[in-house]
């Protein structure tokens, strides 16, 4: 396995950048995501404007992979509609599972395409997908909440 396909500059940059790592002032929704087996633990905060993700941010701790993946995801979903966000999460998870493999189909993921090769490091797949699963949960819960 080649480390350079995983610990890329892009991923390192995101893992060390803190522009998405903060609390939102008036979050509409907080969703916790965690991997008990490795200790990664994030809190994803979201602010809606109607059907749009107006702002997202996160706090928590984890490895470079999980932190970078979370940060990239937030960059990506800011300003997107709930449907678009859901679609992006599904696309990301399908990429990890090698269900979608064509670069052209993955371009929508922008920087997050960098995780395309994470399955070469099977122990770390969980780290890469944590944020996206958490997003999916948050979106699901938003829906449920609105119905009530």
């Amino acid at each position, binding site marked *: *396995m080649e*480390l350079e396909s*995983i*610990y890329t500059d892009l991923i*390192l940059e995101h893992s*060390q950048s803190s522009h998405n790592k903060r609390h939102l002032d008036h979050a509409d929704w907080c969703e916790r995501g965690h991997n008990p*087996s*490795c*200790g*990664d*633990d994030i809190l994803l905060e979201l602010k809606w404007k109607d059907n749009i993700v107006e702002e997202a941010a996160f706090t928590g*701790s*984890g*490895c*470079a*992979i999980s932190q970078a993946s979370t940060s990239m995801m937030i960059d990506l979903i800011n300003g997107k509609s709930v449907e678009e966000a859901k679609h992006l999460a599904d696309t990301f998870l399908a990429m990890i599972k090698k269900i979608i493999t064509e670069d052209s189909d993955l371009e929508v993921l922008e920087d997050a395409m960098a995780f395309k090769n994470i399955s070469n*490091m099977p*122990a*770390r797949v969980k*780290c890469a997908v944590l944020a996206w699963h958490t997003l999916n949960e948050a979106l699901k819960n938003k829906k449920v909440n609105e119905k009530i």
Partner: protein
Amino acid sequence: MKNFDLNSIRKDFPTLFQSVNGKPLVYLDNAATTHKPQVVLDAISDYYRNFNANPHRGAHYLGVTATDMYENARETVQKFVNAKSTREIIFTKNASEALNLIAYSYGMSLIEEGDEIVICISEHHSNIVPWQQVAKHKKATLKYLYINPSFTLDMDEVYSKITDKTKLVSIAQMSNVLGTIYPVKEIAEYAHGMGAKIVVDAAQSIPHMKVDVQDINADFMVFSGHKMLGPMGIGVLYGKEELLEMMPPFLMGGDMIEYVEEQSTTYAQLPQKFEAGTPNVGGAVGLAAAIGYLKELGIEEIHKHERKLTSYALSRLKELPYVKVYGPEQLDQRGAVISFHMDGCHPHDVASIVDTYGVALRAGHHCAQPLMKYLQAPATSRVSFYFYNTINEVDILIDSLKQVRKWLGHGA
């Protein structure tokens, strides 16, 4: 006693000679499980090829031989830990089952409301969760011994936590995270003075040092075969005979009974009373072979070599300003387990990156979440040596850690 010739010793371990990601394997995860010398694998194969049978159950030749081999393995264990009798040696599937056996059988029937159970903050989950359950069900209190900033235990902490309400103290002789060796003999003496019983979790200690249950005066002692060259699926509970006698059985079924009526049952004598179902004879035979190997090598020689490795590793890690070690500095207070954190490098990234250099170390909470919380470290990296590791492997480790820093963008 064999001459301690590392080259020839390593040749006994086929697993060590492989490459991982194109690099020679440097296996530094021995606290999780150790590799097996060929003699252990041969003993297991030999048992299955030539003697396999269900013991205690047949008058035929294979049955008699399998029973003998199983009971001889028990005697090997008895002598190894210096128990008074083979009736005090119960085979389990691992140390965790042994601890559960004590908790379910001794704990659930002999711990009462208001009693106290005392464990140390550095315990492995297997020595925590069963006691939480006992405390909850019996309305007893679970108390913790906290370590000091040097990662050792002050006897004052022992004196203040163990009281005349304490019924049971359970403590690992060696921490699987910090490497700290706890003074279990002194703790046992104090606990006994207070009328408490003591469980010694020797899972990490017994692979590396002489564990004499009579010298420690342990009431119970547990360990796992797979951490000391033996196969998986076999563990040991030692218990003082008079305690095991008064305890109700735990697992019920074939082999642990005397007479079974439709509505009631009387139980077999020790040690069968605690061994339900077909035992793991192959596992016991493998464990006995592992003990034979350790004895031949000599636990003193093992200790000497591991001390050299630990000392060298600690000093090389000190060269790296970004490394913080969690564990005692003094060699006589610690074993060959070193947990550490590298500044700006999450332990999981460390483990993944050194893996590509062939180095197997462990990252995470090491089944000791309360300790990690106490240390305010969500995770650490851990290297753990066994006697087959080399000084050169320490050098490879250090080099690979430097590479980690580079890969994670911190320069070397």
